[in-house]
């Protein structure tokens, strides 16, 4: 397999490369996605909160189509979904890199102790 024949030092470089790749790709993909989604973003909900409260209703009037301002902002949901995917992938690569580095460092330490005790 890909990693099986890699030397430890090379593996360290590879895991660092993976980490750097995640960060770079995260930034590069986040910018255009943000630009796309801010165009389509819904109006600020806090702006609506400042308007005076409506008078008490006497009856409910049915409406066929909900006005756009009342609809859930799809852009925020799309943005959240892509952010979650990136955070999960980046987080996992970081944890993998940290665990691999620790184990390889421990192998080196134990190997050195082992060599020293043999002398």
């Amino acid at each position: 397999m890909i990693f099986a024949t890699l030397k430890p030092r090379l593996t360290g470089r590879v895991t660092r490369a993976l980490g750097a790749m995640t960060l770079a790709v995260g930034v590069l993909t986040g910018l255009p996605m943000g630009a796309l989604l801010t165009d389509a973003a819904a109006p600020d909900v806090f702006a609506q909160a400042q308007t005076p409260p409506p008078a008490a209703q006497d009856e409910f009037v049915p409406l066929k189509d909900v006005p756009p301002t009342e609809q859930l902002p799809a852009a925020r949901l799309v943005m959240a979904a892509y952010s979650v995917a990136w955070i999960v992938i980046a987080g996992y690569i970081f944890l993998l890199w940290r665990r691999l580095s620790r184990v390889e460092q421990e192998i080196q330490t134990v190997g050195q102790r082992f060599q020293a005790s043999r002398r």
Partner: protein
Amino acid sequence: MMSRSFVPLVCVTAVMFVVAPWLIMQAPFESTMGLVQKIFYFHVPAALMMFVSAFVCGVASIRFLATRRKASDQTAVAAAELILVFGIIVLITGPLWARKAWGIWWDWDARLTSTVVLWMMFAAYLLLRRFGGPGSERLAAGVAIFGMANVPFVYWSVNVWRTLHPKTTVVPSLDPSMRPAFYWCFFAFLLLYLLLLNARRRLEAQRDRLTQLYLTYDLEER
């Protein structure tokens, strides 16, 4: 030979993920769902990687039970962990999509429930490996086989039972204008999956090497 291809593959994957948002932007909006349907381009590839990983874990577990080869066990553990990673993406992006498309975050229908069950089966696999003690790898391999057997039920659940979730025909019948973005994202996820699987296998192999080193060291000291 494969080690030499690792870094170029990392670069190719990175480029694919950088290009993906532009392709997703180019893809048309879906007529009924609009913008929120764009979640599809990451949600479905992540779900497919979850299924692929369940098969990899199951097959590796069968091989491990038959041959007792350490390499098969290492592959099974690596694949099980990746099921949880891609599963988290699926189980979070899905409700975000559903909230807008269906008006609810979650519904206990066949597809959603069976996906959670699949995810929990492999969470159980990893918990068993972590806390099961000596011999737990064989017991866990059995769990992985049952987990793999669950995948076809999850996949076809939308066709067999009445659910809110779109049917499996959605992908094969995808509009040609939506295909480039989807297949691009699919191959990007597939490459990412293969790279992560190999990196995780490497971790498992190094852990085994460390255990062997401690055992040898202990024996020499005595």
